Each structure stands twice: as structure tokens, then as C-alpha cells.
């Protein structure tokens, strides 16, 4: 597949091969990244609309425009779409695909055909998931707890099978990235010279490969339970519904680290680049990613303190969760220390990184609060948990994703965007986010349970405020869509290195050529040698 490129032509990975077919059959990791981007952003729009509908219904108590069943369906699709079709694939499949090979000085990932196959598998699974909207909308919550998921007469099997297929895509992407990092680093690119984004993707890939198979078997067992009544999760047949929770969270807890580790990788890149300073504690940040990945396998029961599991099990899970908090704290302090005596710019990518640090600090400490058993009893299944995970997944991952998009947009498309508008978008998203979700910590403290279609009047005003916040976030995202669209069509030509950063992607043209590098780079130093 070696395509010859004319070194002095203006051809880049976008212009060199033309036509839809060239995109749909491309083995170029950059194009595949963009294929994922089109899909994921579409699903993000859908999941976001579900969120807006949900919050609109919750603006005031009582049935407003949805019935209880419709609300439960909207709530389920919001969760399932955002988890399986946006946040889990998101950063690795889009930005990871695009930049991992470039960051290590390679021409592509280890298995380009497998990479394209992974996208097709993702598309098949995600379209199957969406098809349930037209057959029998599911209403189980994205966690599919038994026995309810065995009894509800909705398209559970289809949706669960769709998640199984998307899990295959995740496994293959992880596998591809691991071999790429092991085998395709350019000469001189030792493991201690790869950018921290690569360490993050690498740790994530390990989780994708080791944890997703357990989700696969859990979903297959759920299908078998519904189709044949095997009995493992159904108490009427001698089974245990809590066993489903154990199986489910064994994957789904590592899954949340699949969601956050790549985001932390982006934050490392942004903080270093926009402070123009060597990252503080490179080794600690690198190994903390591996540490988080490893410990994440042993904490799943912190979702189950009141499920009926034994006290001693809870004790172990709570203890181990505290351990996983330490490497996370290390990262935050190391980023803070990187700012010290740096040269800090407030360009929009950096605003998103700083926003991440602000919101993830809150998300992180509330995670520790929830890991404390005696306190979790009150907060479990309340809006406190909803607030916590939105702070880390939206305030964390999505902020980092936005920062990554703004940072790498000039490189990916060769155009600059409107910086002032980008800062406004950031402000809308950041402020809107806090207005939406901070009240939810209070609602949870007051006792409002989650997945509630209706609520007692005491919770009214905070719910209304939260809904207004959702409109602010939405406008911030729509503004970003406009900014990118406008930049793509009419933006000024981007130089190779608009930000003055040091990682390898900034040493090649914007956009890159098909094979990334005209000559294989030889690495003589680390990725953050700002001196």
C-alpha cells in the first residue's frame, strides 16, 4: 500500500485521494480518525438532544410533555448513546487514531486494515443501537440491571447485542494501539520520550483489551437469559440479580478510566504546550496512567455498597478505590507544578485544559466522597452521583476533547479558527456546565434519587436552574460547531506550528501528508524540551 508522494507537491492526506470511496476504503489512520469523528459527533448531537429533552421535562414537577415511560426511554438513550457511542470511543478513535502514529514518528498504526474494519464494526453496532428507536425503545437505564431488564418488553436484546458489537470495535482499536506503541516507534523514540498523550492512549488500550471481553460475556449472558431463561441472573429460576451487577461493573468501572485517561493525556499536552514549559513529573504522570489502569480492575464493587454484597467486600472495594485516587491526585498536582514559572497563554485550547482542571478537581474529590462507605449509603443512586460522573465525564473528558479539537484543528484541516468566538464558546460551556450540574450535588444531598421522572416540590427550583444550565451548554456546543464549520470553509491558512509546541505533529505541515513524515524522524530528546 505504499503510496508515493511527491515531496514538493501541495498534496496532503485530504487532497491527495478524492471521492467518497477513497474515504470509505482508506487505510490512512488520519482519515479513519475523521470517519470516527463524523459518526461520534452525530451521536453526540443525538445524545445531547436526549439530555435537553430530559432536562426540559424535569424543569418542573409533574408530567410536562413526556409520559413516565417516554422519560425512562429518553433517560436510557441519553446514557447508552453517550457512554457507548461518544465517550468510550471518542478521544481514542478520533484524536488517538489521528495523532498516535504521528506522535511516535510512525507512518500509520500497526494494522491499518484492522483499523478500518474497527470503524465498520463500530458503525454496524451503533446503527443497530439506533434502530431500536424504531422498533421498541429500551427503558432500562444504560446499566441494564436485572431483573427489570429481563422483564421489560422492549428491544433489550438488540441494544445489548449492539453494545457487544461496539465492544469488539473497542477491543480491536486497543489491540492496534498497543502493538503500534510497542513496534512502530521511530529511532530514538524510547518509551520515556513518547508524549504523555501516547502513554494515556497506551494505558487506555490495555483496559480496552482486558476489560471489554468481560462486558462481551456479560451481554451475551444477558441475551441468553432473556432468550432462553438460563437463570443465572433471574431469582425466579434460582439465579442472582446481584451477580449481574458484579459482571457488569467488572467491565464498566475500568470503562470509566477508558473514558478519562485519554482526556488526561490531552491535558498533559495542552498544559505543556501553552505554558511552553517542560511537563513536571513526566515519569510520574506516565506511570500513574498505568497504575490507574491496573488498580481500576479491583474497585468495581464501589458501585454496589448497598446492593446486598457483604460488608467485607465493600471494605475491600472502598480501600482499593482510595488507592486509585492517589495517582489521579499526582497528575493534578504535576499539572499545577508545570504552570509554575511557565509562560502561560490563554488561547482557547488552554482555556479548556484549565477548565478541565477546575471541573475535574471537583469531580475527583466527590469521587472520593462517594468511595467512603458510610456516606455513600446516603448518596448512592441520588443526584449526587449524577453530578459526580458528569463533572468527571463532561467536565473532564468532554472539556479535554474540546481542548484537543481546538488545539489540533489547525493541524488536521490546515485552517485557523476564530479565537474570540472560541473563547466565548468555552465560557458558555464552562458556565453552563456548572449551572447545570452543581445544583445536582445539592439535590442529591437533599435526597433526590436519580432516574426520577417526577419529584417532590422541594426539589423544584434547583431542577429549574439545572435545566437553564443545559441550554447554556447547548449554545456553547452549537457555537463551537459553527466556529469549526466557518474555519473549515473560510479559515485563514494555518502554519505548521501555530502554538509554538514541541511534539512531532508540529514539525510537519498542516495538514500532514499522507505518510505523515517525508523522512523518518530520528529522536534525540523528550517531547517537552522547552528551554
Amino acid at each position: 500500500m505504499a503510496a508515493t508522494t511527491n515531496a514538493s507537491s501541495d498534496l496532503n492526506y485530504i487532497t491527495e485521494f478524492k471521492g467518497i470511496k477513497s474515504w470509505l476504503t482508506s487505510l490512512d489512520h488520519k482519515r479513519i480518525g475523521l470517519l470516527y469523528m463524523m459518526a461520534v459527533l452525530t451521536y453526540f448531537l443525538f445524545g445531547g438532544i436526549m439530555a435537553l429533552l430530559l432536562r426540559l421535562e424535569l424543569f418542573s414537577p409533574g408530567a410536562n410533555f413526556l409520559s413516565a415511560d417516554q422519560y425512562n426511554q429518553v433517560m436510557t438513550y441519553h446514557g447508552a448513546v453517550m457512554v457507548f457511542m461518544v465517550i468510550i470511543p471518542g478521544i481514542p478513535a478520533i484524536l488517538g487514531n489521528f495523532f498516535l502514529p504521528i506522535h511516535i514518528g510512525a507512518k500509520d498504526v500497526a494494522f491499518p486494515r484492522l483499523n478500518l474494519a474497527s470503524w465498520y464494526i463500530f458503525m454496524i453496532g451503533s446503527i443497530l443501537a439506533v434502530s431500536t428507536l424504531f422498533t421498541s425503545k429500551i427503558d432500562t437505564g444504560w446499566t441494564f440491571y436485572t431483573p427489570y431488564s429481563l422483564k421489560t418488553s422492549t428491544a433489550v436484546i438488540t441494544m445489548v447485542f449492539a453494545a457487544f458489537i461496539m465492544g469488539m470495535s473497542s477491543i480491536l482499536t486497543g489491540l492496534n494501539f498497543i502493538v503500534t506503541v510497542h513496534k512502530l516507534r521511530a529511532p530514538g523514540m524510547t518509551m520515556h520520550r513518547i508524549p504523555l498523550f501516547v502513554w494515556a492512549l497506551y494505558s487506555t488500550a490495555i483496559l480496552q483489551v482486558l476489560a471489554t471481553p468481560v462486558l462481551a460475556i456479560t451481554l451475551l449472558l444477558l441475551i441468553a437469559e432473556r432468550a432462553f431463561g438460563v437463570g443465572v441472573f433471574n431469582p425466579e429460576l434460582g439465579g442472582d440479580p446481584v451477580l449481574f451487577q458484579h459482571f457488569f461493573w467488572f467491565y464498566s468501572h475500568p470503562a470509566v478510566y477508558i473514558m478519562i485517561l485519554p482526556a488526561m493525556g490531552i491535558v498533559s499536552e495542552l498544559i505543556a504546550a501553552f505554558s511552553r514549559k517542560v511537563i513536571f513529573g513526566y515519569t510520574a504522570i506516565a506511570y500513574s496512567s498505568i497504575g490507574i489502569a491496573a488498580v481500576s480492575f479491583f474497585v468495581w464493587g464501589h458501585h454496589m455498597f448497598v446492593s446486598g454484597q457483604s460488608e467485607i467486600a465493600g471494605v475491600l472495594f472502598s480501600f482499593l478505590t482510595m488507592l486509585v485516587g492517589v495517582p489521579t491526585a499526582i497528575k493534578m498536582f504535576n499539572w499545577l507544578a508545570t504552570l509554575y514559572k511557565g509562560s502561560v497563554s490563554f488561547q482557547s485550547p488552554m482555556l479548556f485544559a484549565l477548565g478541565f482542571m477546575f471541573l475535574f478537581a471537583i469531580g475527583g474529590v466527590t469521587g472520593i466522597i462517594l468511595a467512603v462507605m458510610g456516606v455513600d449509603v446516603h448518596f448512592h443512586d441520588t443526584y449526587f452521583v449524577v453530578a459526580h460522573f458528569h463533572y468527571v465525564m463532561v467536565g473532564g473528558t468532554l472539556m479535554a476533547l474540546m481542548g484537543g479539537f481546538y488545539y489540533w484543528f489547525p493541524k488536521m484541516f490546515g485552517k485557523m479558527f476564530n479565537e474570540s468566538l472560541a473563547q466565548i464558546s468555552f465560557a458558555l460551556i464552562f458556565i453552563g456546565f456548572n449551572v447545570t450540574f452543581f445544583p445536582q450535588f445539592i439535590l442529591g444531598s437533599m435526597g433526590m434519587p436519580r432516574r426520577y421522572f417526577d419529584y417532590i416540590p422541594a426539589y423544584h427550583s434547583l431542577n429549574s436552574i439545572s435545566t437553564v444550565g443545559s441550554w447554556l451548554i447547548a449554545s456553547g456546543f452549537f457555537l463551537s460547531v459553527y466556529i469549526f464549520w466557518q474555519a473549515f470553509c473560510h479559515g485563514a491558512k494555518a502554519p505548521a506550528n501555530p502554538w509554538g509546541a514541541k511534539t512531532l505533529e508540529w514539525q510537519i505541515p498542516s495538514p500532514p501528508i499522507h505518510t505523515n513524515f517525508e523522512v523518518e524522524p530520528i529522536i534525540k530528546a523528550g517531547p517537552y524540551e522547552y528551554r
Partner: protein
Amino acid sequence: MFWTSVAHAGNMMPIPATDIAVEVDNLYNFLLISSFIACAILIGGMIYFVIKYKRKSNNDKTAYITHNSFLEFLWSFIPLVVFLGVFGWGWHVYHEMRKMPANALEIHVQGKQWAWEIEYKSGVKTANLIVVPIDTDVKLIMSSIDVLHSFFVPSFRIKQDVVPGRYTSLWFRANKFGEFHIFCAEFCGTQHSGMIGKLKVVTQKEYEEWLEEESKVGTLPLAKRGEKLFQVKACSGCHSASDLSVKVGPPLFQKFGASREVADGQNVVIDENYVRESILNPNAKIAKGFNPGIMPTFAGQLSEVELNALLEYIKGLK
């Protein structure tokens, strides 16, 4: 204790109504304060640094600091110590919650879609209402007859999933009079948010009087007894008895004697036999426009007398 009072004022929790709630709140207040300090350091530090080290020119030189073993040790070790500390404290509180007291007043709770059925050992049954005496150890023995639910009393800071096929328990000792919400905290379908109950804490005397009143149900006239059953069996959760609104199932108000179209297109008269069949075999002649498989059957749960009582009650809904 200034800081704990600040935390207490700001923690937005309901007024604690049990001894364990106070312990939970103390721990939570500590967590709030520590979290605030951590965030102040991180976020405050971040804001301070980005302002102080704001970029001045495109040629700024930055310090080349790759690491600092002492600092890195410090901000690993101190968080670890704090985390392990709150872990231990949290375990202590949790252990208090799980250690069932001896000689507690035991009450049975059955979660179902979508109500809490309560049964006292004396035989008194209620739906969505638990009455207990103050300053008394109470232990709830709980199960579910269908899907997962979770019994949650925010004011008491207690919660426990109810699982079909097994018993789970929780205990509390209320130290304030009042009425407190019971919520279902595990998603269980359509009326998950409608499974709201009331936990009333009264004096020992009031409790005994209430129990006495309730146990007289057997001597009530049939229709009154039917009215009670209608509440206890949570029929009211899905069927309106006072107006023509649709909750989950069709209203029963002013329906007895009327004619109705059922799913297969036939017309039936809502008479004694239709009412009885609808209770024991709900899917047989479902009202048109409603789905089968939602109303559970009450076969085996109601005696003949109870069926008659319900029938008389429904007849009298005018």
C-alpha cells in the same frame, strides 16, 4: 468547631433524624471541608499561577524543572493518608449501619412495582406508610416480589436495595418526631419516581394506639375494608378511585355497571364477575388502549372475603 458548623450549615442535607444520620453528617462535613481545601489549593493555585506567569512575549524563557522528588512524595503521601483516614472512618460508620441491634422492633417491607407493602408482626398491613415509636431500635426485613428496588429515607441517611429472592435488612433509631419521605432509589420501571412512602415517628403511646386502630380492620364493613385493601395492595398507585384520570391503568371511578370495549373488540359489562376476573387474571379482558402484562395478578394473595370487600368498594365509587 466553627468549620464543622459552617459545613453543617452548608451541606444541604435534610435535618438528621436518627443517631446514625448525625454520624454520617459529621463524616460528610469533614469530607466537605477537606474537599474544599483540596480544591482551593488546586484551583486557587492554578488561578494564581496562570495570572502570575502569564505570557509576556513570544520569546519568554521558562524554567526547566522536570521533577521534584520531595514535592511529589508529599502530594502523594498526604492525599493517601487523608484517603485512608476517611476510608477507615467511613467503614466505622457503615459497620454501625450493618450491625443489626438485638431486640429491635422488626417490621417486614415488601417492595413491588410500584409501592411499599408493609406488614407488622401483629398482622397490621399498610402500603407506603411505616409508623414507628421514637427512640426505638427498628429493623426492617425487606424483599422484593418483582425487580430491584431500593428503600431510602434521606432524613435517616439509610438505604438498602431490596432484591427478589432474598432478604436484606436495615435498621434505624429515630430521634425526631415527624414525617419523613421514603423513596425508591433503584430504577424499577414506569412509576419508579412514584413509589413515595411516608415514615412517621410518633410517641410510644401514639404508636400503640395506631397499631390498635389498624388491627380493627377485620370488623369494618365490607366496603370500608375494601377501601383499606385498595390502599394496602397499592391498587391506588395505578387506578384512580376519585376521578376519571388515567394513572397507569384505567380509572375505577364510576365504572361499575358501565360497558367497556376490551382489547379484542368485544364489549363487556363491568359487573361482579368482570371485576373479580380483572383482579385474578388481569390479562383476560384488558380495556382497549391499555397494554397486557403490566397489572400483576393477585391470585393467591386475596381471600374470598377480601375479594368481596374490594368488589363492594369499587361498586360504591360514585
